[in-house]
């Protein structure tokens, strides 16, 4: 790295200014270095957040610039919390969250445990398994609609191959009962490697001598697994659940491309619902209140969870 950004700036800096920079105290440098980042975050994150809070008390609509904006107090919040349709989207989100986390933890941990058997070539296969998680969810999700087509889609065909259920007899994304599972399957396919990688790190962090000591005490393999492996990996697993939980609560791109919230509204997750309110119905004030409620929910749940995580870590 001969030409780092910093060096380029330094080269371009006139000598007098450069001399001044050199003479700066640590304290000034610290502020100088942190300030641009903080400024950017204030401008593009905090200021908009405050603006959103303000909007959430109004009946403002971004597509009606000529209409007078009125403050309506807590009316937006009241409407959201008493709206039955929004509770349905919350249920859809909860279903999605629970089952994706369940499968990802189950499969991810199993895979990590298997890979930790250190068979030959495990590095190569790990890298292959990891690939889906790095790809663009929108692009991949869009292609999955093709894989899910009855008859011509690969997914239905593979199901037919293994189970004998005819490929044209069911449709994953069009069927009210199957659609919620179709999004769980794709998300699990994409993100199991994430949980796997973190569990693998956890497994590898357990020193051999603990197992050796247990073996000397004649603890069975089963017992070793439950008294050593699981407790030692738990903090890692919880961290993985935290990350996946936050990400899937925010889930938008993958599901929008897969089902668009349909059929009916059975896969309409909160982010998709919010997008409809904010950018299709253009009820900006209402959607702002909705956004604040979501933010408080994630933030609150995450804070409680982090406290629990820290307790587990301390043990």
């Amino acid at each position, binding site marked *: 790295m001969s030409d780092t950004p910093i060096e380029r700036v330094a080269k371009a800096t006139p000598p007098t200014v450069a001399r001044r920079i050199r003479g700066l105290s640590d304290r000034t440098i610290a502020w100088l270095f942190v300030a641009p980042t903080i400024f950017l975050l204030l401008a593009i994150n905090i200021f908009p957040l405050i603006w959103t809070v303000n909007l959430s008390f109004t009946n403002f609509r971004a*597509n009606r610039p000529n209409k007078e904006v009125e403050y309506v107090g807590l009316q937006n919040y009241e409407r959201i919390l008493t709206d039955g349709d929004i509770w349905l989207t919350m249920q859809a989100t909860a279903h999605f969250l629970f089952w994706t986390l369940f499968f990802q933890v189950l499969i991810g941990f199993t895979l990590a445990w298997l890979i930790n058997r250190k068979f030959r070539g495990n590095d190569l296969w790990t890298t292959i398994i990891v690939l889906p998680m790095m790809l663009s969810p929108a692009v991949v999700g869009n292609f999955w609609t093709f894989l899910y087509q009855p*008859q011509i889609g690969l997914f239905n065909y593979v199901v037919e191959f293994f189970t004998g259920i005819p490929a044209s007899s069911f449709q994953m994304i*069009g069927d*009210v009962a199957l659609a919620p599972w179709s999004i769980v399957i794709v998300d699990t396919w994409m993100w199991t490697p994430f949980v796997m990688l973190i569990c693998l790190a956890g497994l590898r962090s357990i020193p051999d001598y603990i197992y050796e000591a247990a073996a000397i005490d004649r603890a069975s393999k089963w017992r070793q697994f439950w008294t050593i492996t699981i407790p030692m990996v738990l903090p890692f697993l919880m961290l993985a659940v935290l990350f996946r939980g936050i990400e899937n609560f925010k889930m938008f791109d993958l599901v929008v491309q897969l089902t668009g919230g349909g*059929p*009916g*509204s059975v896969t309409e997750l909160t982010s998709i619902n919010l997008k409809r309110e904010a950018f*299709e*119905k*253009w009820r900006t004030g209402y959607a702002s209140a909705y956004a604040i409620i979501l933010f408080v929910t994630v933030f609150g749940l995450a804070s409680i969870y982090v406290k629990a995580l820290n307790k587990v870590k301390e043990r």
Partner: protein
Amino acid sequence: MKTKGLLAATTVVAMSGFAVTGAQAEDLTLCWAAWDPANALVELSKEYEAKSGNTMHFEFVPWPNFADRMLNELNSGGKLCDLLIGDSQWIGGGAENGHYVRLNDFFDAEGISMDDFAPATVYAYSTWPKGTPNYYALPAMGDANGWFYRRDWFENPEIMAAYKEATGQDLREPETQKELLQIAQFFQGREIDGQTRYGAAIFTERGSEGITMGATGALYTFGFKYENTPGSYDMAGAVNSPEAVEGLEFYKEFYKTATPPGYTDSYMEQGLDAFKSGQVAMAMNWFAFFPGLYADPDTGGDKIGFFPNPGQNVEASTLGGQGISVVSYSDHKEAALDYIKWFAQPEVQAKWWALGGYSCHNSVLNDPGFKDSQPFAADFLSAMGHVQDFWQEPAYAELLLAMQKRLHDYVVADQGTAQEALDLLIEDWTETFEDEGKL
């Protein structure tokens, strides 16, 4: 960036009166949906480019994303489009929120008269408030939802005999909605040439406007109305009248008993695919696609026939189509108006029809040869005679989203009854109109 600055400078010069309108070569961008007629418009516009020296660029967005992206563009005050061929329902928002330029002065100055265009199209595509002489668009593309069928199957003696045996009637172009369903049910699951065929492809799409555009085809003919008295927003008894409920139940029965499996989220493209791949005997779709369907080497020509939406209690067709508007945020408004002036000429309109666009100009439609110019031309005229459109209110998107949800929940996702769906729809719409201060 450089060219942009240069263009801005050009506009300033043009506006300050140094240059004559249209004399300066400019880059114009026209936005529309990506479909067959758009390709015809590209072809047509080559003539304009040669004549004016302006360069035309096109931004065509696929239908499922069209409304979303273009309304977003307008609401963000974007300068991407100078000219926009926007859907008929956008006119209210386009006018009230200042997205579209009001064209009255321009029409007067250039001698363009709205009397030269078919009244139904002027009403639907150009005016806001509805029916007043305030024009925000020039009717560009007339359109309605119609039907087409496999003429080769309908005229196959074996199939005709089987139909007669099954129903006691002759197989023909249906004249009522119920006859349409009967024919579709007859073809559903039938083996023809060694393959299983299905009744008809209908609109069931959830994401944009599909299921609403499809279901209203049935609803209007059964007697569904938006209001008891136009302009009063009194929807109870109109939206959920017994006839409307029957119409919606009819559409669900159609979906459940006479459409190919897996068409749970199908709109224009899927319907065309189903027909072209020989899966279905009939399909609904916009007249805009008919020239392309007729030209199709596999299922076009003498294998295809067309008919307008059959009536039931009343005659009605769902309106499609668009007017062409000038976007008020554009830096090239003068040139954009120049394009509209060119487009409005009778000769250009005649060529537009010849290339596959549906002209709304009287000189084209009233031409004695028009009805025979294409096998679907007469059907188009009869459909346009009794078209009905969705709400064109500024809050149209919100109204449409509610209807999409309620219809899809009932028809495809099997939730509740038709009565409940329409009652809920009135609740949603009432809420919207209350927010708007109209109720």
